[in-house]
């Protein structure tokens, strides 16, 4: 990225010789305009003459940037076209399901909450939430490290986490879940390999979170944009028999960090852009300078997410232990009964031949009906919402 700086500087100077940020347009006026003329479009086209750059890598970096941009600006449809020699790479970034996030002291952001996880086969059509429900965390003020101040970074800096658990299984309250991955990314920056984030697992209290461990695995995914990815170490299953029949739904947690800076003395667009460059440059120092508060904020968000998972685990245990009694009592009555009609009716109902098969069949059926108990929620993005994938307000606690 640093190598591109001169290019970006040239680009900026040629595009914005003397620009300053204009006030935000009035939403009603904007609507009136777009109703008449359609959505606003911005075409940004540039040609690279310098052949020093690896085009494939450049394309990947631009795509990664646009992915990151799209995640937190989901209402903007992006069409990327990259020509190299005679080859053209094209990609449309259109978000299927969006959600509005109201942040402190910032304009609202539209997040991409689309979930790509396919529903299991047993889920009926229209009964699977295809999106997520962002949960806004508390704002954490950050102190600016002296190094950055020396370079001209002043003002107030803060960070606000937003978590997104995927896939959403709120409509299946009895389903056991298992957090397998945590992805942390900045909403408006691309994180370079960061020691802060690499060392994060060592500073989190995994015991308090009820986790066996967190392992950092740096991971760049063109679809999901770059960020730090952590693998959650799972508890070994005590009962191998249970393992096969009660696989929990694997979920991943996306933790967006919205960094906000304000400086009343920065009013020119060029100043704003310079500040952004500074923040990005000193991001690692900023994080290290505020290690305790940032780690605590992340710990809190993870704890809230895992609280719900743990609750589900306890509920699962209640259901499982009660199911044993229900099944054993029912089967005992059938086995003890001398009423042929009753026994036949039970066996025929479940289409089995004997009480041994009846036991297995009832067990599987009970597990299925209880685990996949469906409780529809208006806020979930089920199939019928596809036509109107509009945002809904994020809640403080929505897990």
């Amino acid at each position: 990225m640093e190598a591109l700086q001169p290019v970006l500087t040239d680009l900026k100077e040629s595009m914005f010789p003397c620009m300053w940020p204009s006030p935000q347009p009035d939403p009603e006026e904007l609507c009136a305009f777009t109703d008449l003329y359609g959505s606003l479009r911005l075409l940004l086209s540039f040609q690279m003459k310098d052949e020093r750059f690896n085009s494939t890598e450049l394309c990947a970096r631009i795509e990664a940037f646009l992915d990151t941009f799209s995640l937190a600006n989901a209402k903007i449809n992006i069409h990327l076209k990259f020509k190299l020699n005679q080859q053209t790479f094209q990609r449309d970034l259109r978000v299927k399901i969006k959600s509005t996030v109201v942040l402190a002291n910032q304009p609202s952001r539209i997040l991409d909450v689309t979930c790509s996880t396919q529903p299991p086969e047993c889920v009926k059509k229209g009964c699977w939430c295809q999106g997520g429900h962002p949960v806004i965390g508390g704002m954490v003020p950050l102190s600016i490290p002296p190094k950055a101040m020396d370079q001209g970074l002043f003002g107030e800096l803060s960070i606000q986490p937003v978590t997104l658990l995927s896939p959403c299984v709120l409509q299946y309250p009895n389903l056991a879940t298992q957090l397998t991955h945590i992805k942390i990314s900045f909403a408006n920056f691309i994180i370079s390999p960061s020691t802060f984030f690499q060392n994060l697992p060592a500073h989190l209290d995994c015991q308090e979170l009820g986790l066996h461990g967190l392992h950092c695995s740096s991971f760049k995914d063109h679809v999901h944009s770059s960020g730090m990815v952590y693998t959650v170490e799972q508890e070994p299953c005590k009962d191998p028999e249970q393992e096969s029949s009660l696989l929990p739904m694997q979920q991943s947690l996306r933790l967006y960090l919205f960094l906000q800076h304000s400086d009343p003395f920065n009013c020119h667009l060029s100043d704003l852009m310079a500040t952004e460059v500074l923040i990005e440059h000193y991001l690692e120092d900023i994080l290290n300078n505020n290690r305790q508060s940032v780690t605590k904020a992340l710990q809190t968000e993870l704890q809230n997410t895992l609280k719900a998972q743990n609750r589900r685990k306890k509920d699962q245990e209640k259901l499982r232990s009660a199911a044993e009694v229900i099944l054993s009592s029912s089967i005992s009555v059938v086995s003890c009964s001398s009423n042929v009609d009753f026994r036949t009716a039970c066996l025929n109902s479940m289409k089995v031949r004997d009480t041994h098969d009846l036991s297995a069949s009832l067990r599987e059926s009970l597990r299925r009906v209880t685990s996949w108990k469906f409780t529809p929620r208006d806020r979930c993005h089920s199939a019928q919402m596809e036509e109107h994938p509009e945002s809904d307000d994020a809640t403080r606690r929505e897990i």
Partner: protein
Amino acid sequence: MGSCEAGLFTEIDKLRAELVNNVEVMPGCQRDEEEITYREILSRIENVILGIVTSLSKDENPVLALPNRSSWANVSFDSAIGLQMNSGSSVTSIRSDSPSSVRKFAQILKIFLVIYKLVQSNSYATKRDIYYNNTQLFGSQKTVDSIVDDISCMLKVPRRSLHVMATSKGLISGDLCYLEEDGTRVDCRSGSAAVAVSSNIGGIRNIVSSAKFVMIVEKDATFQRLLDDDFCEKLSPCIIITGKGVPDVNSRLMVRKLWDTLHIPIFALVDADPHGIEIMCIYKYGSVAMSFEAHNLTVPSVMWLGLLPSDLQRLRVPEDALIPLTKRDENKLSSLLKRPYLTSQPDWQKEMELMQQTQVKAEIQSLAAIAPDFLTNIYLPNKLRYGGWV
């Protein structure tokens, strides 16, 4: 004063004649109980299990529907029976797919199994046995007690027909002999010691008694006092019984059994306070919780012998023996006055309204403030002699 004094039972004998003429006897309920065979009970349990299996075969969540035994909306009053459960009463659904109710679902199924095996093998167990066989599942004795009654209501079968017994807490004494189901001969005539109410009232046979009346005593303390004062000798022949407060089912069944067998007046001796009146109403009209079995448990002919609120004024019970009504007492009194059965008891209403006006209550023990032996030697004999009941 002795029991042979002429005229002591004149009013009681008159009352008895009146009761026998007026009160409908219901032999059908006895026959109803015999008609529920063990095969039918097993079949009713099997239907519940089949319902669960059928639900699961359709990939539907099994649900148990328990009649709601705590709602006044589910009961109606019949002057001949008391409070009885309506046929279309509301139910509470116990789901097997909800973490909050699945445990109860499992507890109910477990008790169904226990009952099934007891009935099938013609053996008996107490509610305590059921609890101690699986304390982890049930958590408390109260849970077992409640579920057994729920099942009894759900299947429309008396608890004793489910082969589940309860240890009785009541005591009985007086002119009464009978045989238990296992052939044990019980003689309640020992003056100083009382006999525990049987835990198998349905199995009692060969009842022999020449008692002129039965007196239900609210509290154990008063009952013991009467025993100590040789009440049953002095007012012989009679029977006294106590449920030690809110009566258990066996005590209520025993009172009902005595009425059905002997057709003699049943009097209640309770404290002159809302709690005592409510206990008396349970014997007479039944409770909401057991309304599904009202036919076997209620004795609508119960008369209020004492302690009446009007007695407090009439006897000039010392003021320091009187207790002001609390807010809770007032609320209870208002609630009692609104109950459907009070409209057919104008004299009881008057007594309760008097209590509302005077704003005081009193225990039976308050009569000791007049004289130590006032209760046994003066109050009760005069009440019985001169028809001082309402």
